[in-house]
Structures are given as C-alpha cells and as structure tokens.
C-alpha cells in the first residue's frame, strides 16, 4: 500500500506539470480556484470560449482526453496518468465542465459503436473541444425510466425520420452533435424497441429551447424534433438494440471516477476557518466542529474510495456499480453543506449578491444548484437501487410493464 509515483509516473507528472505551468490560462486561475458548484464566473470573459481555447491547446500538445487512443485525439494514457493529470491541472480542470457529457459519455459510445471512418472524423474534434456534444436521452415521459421514451424514429429509405421531444438536455444550446435514443418499435416491450443514433444538432427540424432552471440559470433545454432526417449510417448499434447501447453510455459515466466529485467540504472548512461568530471564530465552536468533522470523514471517505477504484483500474479491473456511491453521497452532501453554511451566516444568509454576501455568495449558488445534482445522471433513489441490486444482489423492483407492449402501457398515474 503506497501513494508513491513509480519512476515512470513521476516522469509523467513532471512533464504534465511543466506543460501546464507554461500554457494554462493563468489569468483565470484565482477565479477558477474560488468557483464552486453552481458558480463559475470569469469576469469579462465568455467561459465557453475560454474553455474551448484551453481544450484546443491541450489537444494540440497531446494532453486532451488522455485515456482515448491517439488516433481518436487522445494520448493512450493509463488510468493513473489520467489521475495525475487531473491533480496537476487543478482549478483549470474546472474548465472542462462543459465537455463532460461529450468526453465521458458520447465519445465512449461512439468509440464502441460507430464505424472506423466516423470515429476518425468525429472523435478528434470532440476531444479538442472544437465540437461540443450533448446526450438526448431524457423525455417528459422517461427520465429515471429511460426506456419509457416516446420520440419516434421511422425508416424511410436510407434515412430515419425523427419526431418527438427531449428534455433536460444539458448544453444542447451550444452543442454541435448529440447522441439520441429513440423508439423504433412501439409494439414490443419497452426495452426491446429502442434504437440509438448520433446527429448534427444543426439538422433541419431540430429546435432547442433553453429552460430556465430553479437556480435561475439556463444550462439545460427542451429539444424538439420535427421530421428530422438522420442517415442510417449514423445509427449506433443494431435496430431495436438501443437499450444495450445506452447501457454502454451509462456505464461509461462511471469511468469518470477520480474526476473528484464535489462535496463542498474544502469550501466549508475554509469558510469556518475565516468566519467570525459572536463568540469568536466559527471553527472554535463545539457544534461547528462536530458538523465539520462529520462532513470531513464523508469527503475523505469518498476521496479514498475513488483511490481504491483507481488502484483497481490500474490492475486492469473494470469499474463496477459500486462506484455509484460517489454521486449518491456527494450529491446530498453538497446540499447539506450549502444549507449549513447559510445557517452559520444567520440573517445575512439570505443574501446572494457577490458584493454583499459572504464569500461572494458561493454557498447560496451551491444551494440553488444542488437539487439538480441529486437528480442528474440518476436520482439518489436510482443510485440506491443500483447499489442494492447490483452490488448487494437484492431482487430487482417489480416491473409491471416489463412484458407489456410499449403502446399498451398506461401513461397517467390518476385516470
């Protein structure tokens, strides 16, 4: 058991460190360091442009999507090298936020199911951030129950014609491409009639409408499809096998381990260290210390859980469902941390303006973003189901619609 770099790892770290220090957009370092879940502000700059420029620079020098094969724009790195890179990239890594879905889910799905020529055409610009991708899975009728989706794809010669609506699509408003899960056969059970495609988001008939979120920001969208044409060559996997293709996508989400889920703890610790209460520094208060200690061991527990997972990865083991624990724990923790930080501010906790609020309203922004964190990528309840069923081996939920043809499944809870 050790944390030491091997000579090879140490050499890689030194190289990465040197390159980052010579090339990173240092003018934004301080703002990025201070930014947290729900608040990434770069004064006087368009964050998408800054992020794209940094990603492009990395790609040109061979530092983008480290674990991807070189021919698809990556570096062919080992999982450990990826972690070392993340450690060295530090706050600049926060700029990759808008590429997470493309790099973490769409790319790997393309790698598994697209043709060789397509991979060479689409993957390098995805790796370099020149093209942004989104994931078009969720619908009003199917979120947790992804297979409940209704967007239709109908074959017409060599094309497919898409009609329907997606929702909660992160980044669709600035995306160039998307992976799309559709229904191709409503007469069979719901999991058996789905097909996956990728498409150009600028295709005629695609309409993106930003949704204003509870946090006040607009990061996700509704996407409408009206007679959108997708060539059959952009199908991923076989017809009606989309469910299995989507499982690859969802499984790849777990590969993002080590990316370090945000718990809010470092922010809270710093805050308690500096905040003055009536009787002195917050951190000297008995009850504050108790709360902090409880969050501290959750945060460290997650950190070392992910190190254990990385160690397993480096021995060639596959990431399993046990990695769902990161999202489950961090999601609700960040919400509790935000609430607690506001509580410590007392009456002034209601203020969120960067000028008047403590630490520029960081925790207020976190509070408003946190509910989404517990929902996106699978709700807390779905994560618990995954752990109970796939890790502990408990029986699956009873699925009353499992063998019912999709078009016979009831669509309203109360008649």
């Amino acid at each position, binding site marked *: *058991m*050790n*944390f*030491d*770099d091997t000579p090879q*790892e140490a050499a890689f770290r030194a190289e990465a460190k040197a390159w980052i220090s010579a090339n990173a957009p240092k003018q934004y370092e301080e703002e990025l360091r201070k930014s947290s879940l729900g608040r990434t502000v770069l004064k006087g700059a368009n964050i998408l442009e800054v992020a794209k420029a940094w990603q492009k620079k990395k790609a040109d020098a061979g530092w983008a999507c480290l674990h991807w094969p070189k021919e698809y724009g990556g570096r062919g790195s080992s999982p*450990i090298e990826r*972690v070392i890179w993340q450690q060295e990239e530090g706050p600049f890594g926060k700029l990759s936020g808008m590429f997470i879905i493309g790099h973490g889910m769409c790319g790997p799905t393309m790698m598994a199911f697209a043709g060789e020529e397509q991979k060479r055409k689409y993957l390098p610009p995805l790796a370099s951030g020149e093209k942004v991708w989104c994931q078009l899975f969720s619908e009003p009728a199917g979120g947790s129950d992804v297979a409940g989706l209704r967007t239709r794809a109908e074959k017409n010669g060599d094309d497919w014609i898409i009609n329907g609506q997606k929702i909660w699509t992160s980044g669709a408003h600035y995306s160039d491409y998307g992976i799309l899960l559709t229904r191709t056969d409503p007469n069979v059970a719901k999991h058996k009639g789905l097909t996956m495609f990728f498409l150009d988001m600028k295709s005629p008939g695609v309409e993106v409408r930003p949704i204003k979120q509870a946090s006040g920001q607009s990061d996700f969208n509704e996407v409408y499809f009206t007679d959108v044409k997708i060539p059959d060559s952009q199908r991923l996997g076989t017809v009606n096998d989309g469910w299995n293709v989507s499982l690859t996508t969802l499984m790849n989400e777990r590969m993002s381990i080590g990316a370090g889920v945000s718990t809010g703890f470092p922010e809270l*610790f710093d805050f308690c*260290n500096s905040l003055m209460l009536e009787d002195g520094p917050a*951190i000297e208060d*008995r009850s504050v*210390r*108790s709360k*902090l*200690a*409880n969050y*501290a*061991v*959750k945060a*460290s*527990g*997650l*950190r*070392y*859980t992910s*190190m*254990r997972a*990385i*160690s*397993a990865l*480096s021995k060639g083991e596959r990431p399993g469902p*046990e990695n769902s*624990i990161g999202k*489950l*724990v961090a999601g609700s923790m960040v919400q509790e941390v935000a609430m607690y930080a506001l509580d410590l501010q007392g009456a002034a906790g209601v203020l969120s303006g960067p000028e008047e609020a403590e630490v520029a309203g960081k925790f207020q922004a976190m509070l408003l973003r946190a509910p989404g964190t517990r929902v996106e990528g699978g709700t807390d*309840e779905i*994560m*618990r*189901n995954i*752990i*109970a*069923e796939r*890790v*502990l*081996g*408990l*029986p*699956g*939920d*009873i699925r009353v619609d499992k063998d019912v043809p999709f078009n016979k499944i009831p669509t309203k809870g109360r008649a």
Partner: protein
Amino acid sequence: MNFDFSDEQKQMRDEARKFLAEKCPPKAVREVLDGKAPYDKTLWKGLAEMGFLGVAIPEEFGGAGAGHLELCVIAEEMGRANAPVPFSSTVYLAAEALLLAGSDAQKQKWLPKIASGEAIGTLALFEGKGNPSPKAIKLQASGGTLSGVKKPVPDGAIADFAVVAARTGSTGRDSDISLFLVDLKTGGVEAKSLTNVDPTRGQAELTFKNAKAEPLGAAGDGWSILTQVLDRAAVLLAFEQVGGSDRALEMGRDYALDRIAFGRPIGSFQAVKHILADMYVSATLARSNCYYGAWALSTNASELPEAAAAARISATQAFQHCSKNNIQVHGGMGFTWEFDCHMYYRRANTTALTLGSLSYWEDQLIDRMRKKNAA
C-alpha cells in the same frame, strides 16, 4: 500508487477469516455473552498459535515481525467474528505502548509473552466519565508506587499487566502525566469486574494502593506517548469496526433475501433495499478511511494523527449505523436474545466509547486539520 492490500496480506485475511469462522462461531461468542467465561481461552491460545497475537511485534521480541498492515487485516476479521478475547486491549493498547516507549528490558519481559498468549495486557487511562484528557488523570505516582482508581479498564479483570497513566506533576501542563507499567499479579492492585453493555468485552475497576510500578518512557512524556498509542489503536480498532459493519450488513442482506412478507422477499421492497444500500455506503466510506489510516500507521507518516481520527469517526459511525439497521431489517427476530444482531449492536456502541467518544474524536480531527492547514 497502489491503494490496496497486497496479495499476501489478503491471503492472511482469508486465513484469519477461515480460522475464526471455525474457532469463533456465534456459539462461542455466546459462552462469554452468557457469562460462562470471562473470555474465550481456547480461542486465545489458538490465536497465539496462528501467530496473530504477535503479527506486528518484531521477531527479536518473539513476534512474527510482519507489520501493521498485516495487523489491520487481522483486526478486521476479529471485528467481523466479534471475537470475545482481550485482543484490542493487549495488542493495540499494551503492546503498542511497549513498542513505542518501553525499555529493552520491558519489551523483552512482556512482548514475547503477548505474542505467545501468556500475558494479557491493558491500558488504564480513564477515571470515570469523560474523555481522554490530562486534567482528568488524578491517580498519583510517588516513589515508584501508584495510588488511585481507574475505571473502566478494558479487560482489566483478566489482565496480567497494565500500562497506567498517572499524575507526576502539578504544573497544569501535559507534562504532569507519566506512564507506568504495573504487574497486576504482584499485589497492591484490586480488580473488580463491572457489568457493562457488551459482556463479550470485559470492563473493570482497578484500585491501586501503593502498587509497585516502573516508569514506561521518560517522566513527563506520558501524555504525548498516550496520544500516539490512542491514534494507533484508533486505526486498528477502526478495522474491527469495519469488520463488524460488514458482517452486520451481510446478516441483514441474507435475512432480506430469505424472509418472505406480503408474498415477496422483504429485500424486494425498496424501503428495505435502500436501508441496506445506505449500510453499504457507510461501511464503504469507513473502509476507505481505514485504508488511509492503515497506510499512515504502517509508514509512520506525519498524516497519522489526522488519518487516525478520520478512520475512528467514520468506522464508529458505520458500525453503529449498520448494527442498528441490521436489527431493523430483522424485525422482531432482530430484537430477540437468540438472534446474533444484538451482539454486534452492543459491540458497536461500546467500541464507540473505548478510546474516547465520537465527539472527542470529532474535536481531535478538526484540531489536527487546522494545525495542518496552518502549517
């Protein structure tokens, strides 16, 4: 980076698990629980023969000289089996104190006896309610003798020797405290068993009346040695707690698969599944914190104080969480004497207090994090 135990260490864990499954089934634990014996003597002898008592004791002192990572994997199995033996008091507390501060002669005298199972040791620290603190130590040392009362002392009634924290100064500083070694069989000490929440882990009151004592470590170093002993024991005991958490989770899972209600295994009800998922989460977070503690302990890293506190808190929470919810999943059966659930519940809640309470360690953790931050 390799944040895992080695294959040899895992093999040792399997060996210990197999041995304990055979020699320490719940029936054996119950002998002690029901008051038929103060501890399981046969098991104790067996542990010595397997070399488990001296795993981390150097060969020159009669041990196996394997190391602390190996001791961690044994500790986990001791916790999983709920072993009714004075392992933690002897191996984590007494032996660690000797290793840290003992003279060569003291080590030669006691460590081989620990490794061979001939001597049971303990640490006499507490004097009634409260948490570890120099101020709370009133027991007085003078002219090579000790006078005063210690309680609760883990396994105090069956111990052959004790490491005793005593007051040797009155400046109000930590340096007022010194440690002593007392052979409990030579007279001057009266031991009284105390009834406690977990009968499989005895607690006693030791009354010292001019008892002969020899210094352990330099005079005035007592508190600093104690702090180190507590940190080391915290990591080791945390592994026991993780072993117990895992066992409680397994018991709950197995019951949920077998018990039918409303025509279905109760494990198919989401409310039950989610209880078990949360048990898994707390046990996993604790395990990961413990691994970090094991690394810090085995390398004597400067991170040990912080890592030990984190492991201790996390493992205490996990064991309490898993053992109480294991009973819940078992329903009425879980609340019977006959089912094993309460043995883990008792152990979880007494282990939570033996090295200082949860709130004590919370305080320690934040102190240590602050110091590191300031440095």
